[in-house]
């Protein structure tokens, strides 16, 4: 969770403290389509995983990314 927040903060150039639980593409100005890809690449590298395109389009909020990672990393 903390690691993910760090990645989000770094990718979108904001403070970690500004990332609440409802953080998502809708309430983050710098989370545009290129930003989204940068985020996916950063997550793939950090957790050493490959995320399928069908998942990538769904991962538009802290919550959905967390759910995805919990599932993916638990296996």
């Amino acid at each position, binding site marked *: 969770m903390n690691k993910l927040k760090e990645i989000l903060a770094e990718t979108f150039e904001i403070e970690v403290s500004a990332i609440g639980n409802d953080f998502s593409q809708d309430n983050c100005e710098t989370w545009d389509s*290129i930003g989204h*890809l*940068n985020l996916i*690449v950063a997550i*793939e*590298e950090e957790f050493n995983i*490959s995320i*399928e*395109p069908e998942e*990538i389009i769904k991962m538009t909020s802290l919550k959905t990314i967390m759910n995805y990672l919990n599932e993916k990393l638990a296996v």
Partner: protein
Amino acid sequence: MKNFVFRNYTVEYLFDKNYVFSDYNSSLLFDENCDAYLWFYFLPIKSNSLLLIEELKDLKNRLNILCEKLEPSKPLYLFTIEDFYSLQYVNSDFNLIKAVEDYNAFLREKSFNRENTYLFDVSTFFRKFSNSDLIDWKFYYTSQFVINPKLAKEFKNWLSKQYDSINYKRKKCIILDLDNTLWGGILGEDGAEGIKIGNTYPGNIFSDFQNLLLEASKAGIILAVCSKNNEKDVLDLWKTHPDLILREEHFSAYKINWNNKAENIIELAKELNIGLESMVFVDDNPVERNLVKEIIKDVTVPDFPDKIYQLPEFFKSIYNKYFQIYKINSEDMAKLNQYKSNAERAKLKTSLNIKEYLKSLETVLSIKPADKFTIPRISQMTQKTNQFNLTTQRYSESDIVKFLEQGNFIYTLSVKDKFGDNGITGLIILKEQDKTLIIDTLLLSCRILGRNIEYDFVKFVLNIFIEKGCKNFKSSYLPTLKNKQVEDFYDKLGFTFEYREKENKFYNLESKKLFEINKDVKIEYYE
């Protein structure tokens, strides 16, 4: 500073914030207020190569139009095209390959004909990776990325090197060690006939390395030498050795002596009137490299390859990293040098602290009386050591055994530091005669010189005998062609010069007082 990128794929992630991007179609609309323009296209994947050939033609036309529209003073950077998919349906069908070549040749022409136009060969980036690393097909199809986004940082580094090469932002000088760097072997030990250079392994590696350096000097890189050797030996070698490629005239400056290399490099920078940060120091010896690295932080010190047959690969990587240049223009170079030299001169601050450095090496000297395990090494060292050798007596193993049986004293010196254990690298043989102790042999391997170890070793051994009540010592220096560097060793140690017989110098010492030993060095003594 704002740059404009013409493109046909998603490339935003390959550039930083100072860039803006064209749309994906071929409209040729662009922001005229940008400072520089990049022409950065990829060859799409299309099974119909005729269509691709048409696209390449279209790109050429558009580039022509752009060149007419663009203000001539604005820089234009052209990137070559690589067929990154390159599926050859019919091996003898070269039409697409030829079209790509033509396109790249067209860019090359443009870079010659238009002012402020530069060609960047993307194959120098592509070549570093296998195709499967270079492209992540998932991102290719979801987001139109050709280059794997995980390589974005590498790409940015590559691009900044390309810009540097245009702006003459490169290092100026390679400082080279000699023994085991420019040739195989040690000149002082192996002699001019014994060093490895020429047509056969391993000399052929060093020949190639020298040729590569020669080409670098033609591309404007200053070559300099910093070596622990007798200067005269090297000057003779440069004049007489038939297989050398680099000789005295190829080096703008050299320091060949037994001084500390960090001091020598600072001297070289003063002599050449260039900044320390524009120098790259190449030496096979990790201790020398670390000394220079720690004392003069501005000098670049790349790791030397473990295997000498990696030298050409090593050279290529340091050349690409530090010495790339787009074009050599003598006028520009001269101007640049003039303009820079003043600033650089001011920078030549001597942050020299050799004593601190030597302390940080954590050198440990182990001094041991000879035993049956060390006799072969002792004999070998008397046979092989030429330079730091006061009397150059050659002894067989049975000679050494006999000395010990007669009650003489032999001590070996092993040196280790934080970089590793050098093993036995020094020895002293003392013979007792009429209550006087005579130093029959004293020698050290050159690779541990430059840290004053030689003095601590001898002082420590003499102290052993002074403590036992011995007062009188005698020693001698017998000159050979190779041991000039130690001609005044005993003078420096505090012995009294007694007389000269032919060229040989004889000394004595009467002492009740123990020698003072450098406290920064740890000495282990095994009785």
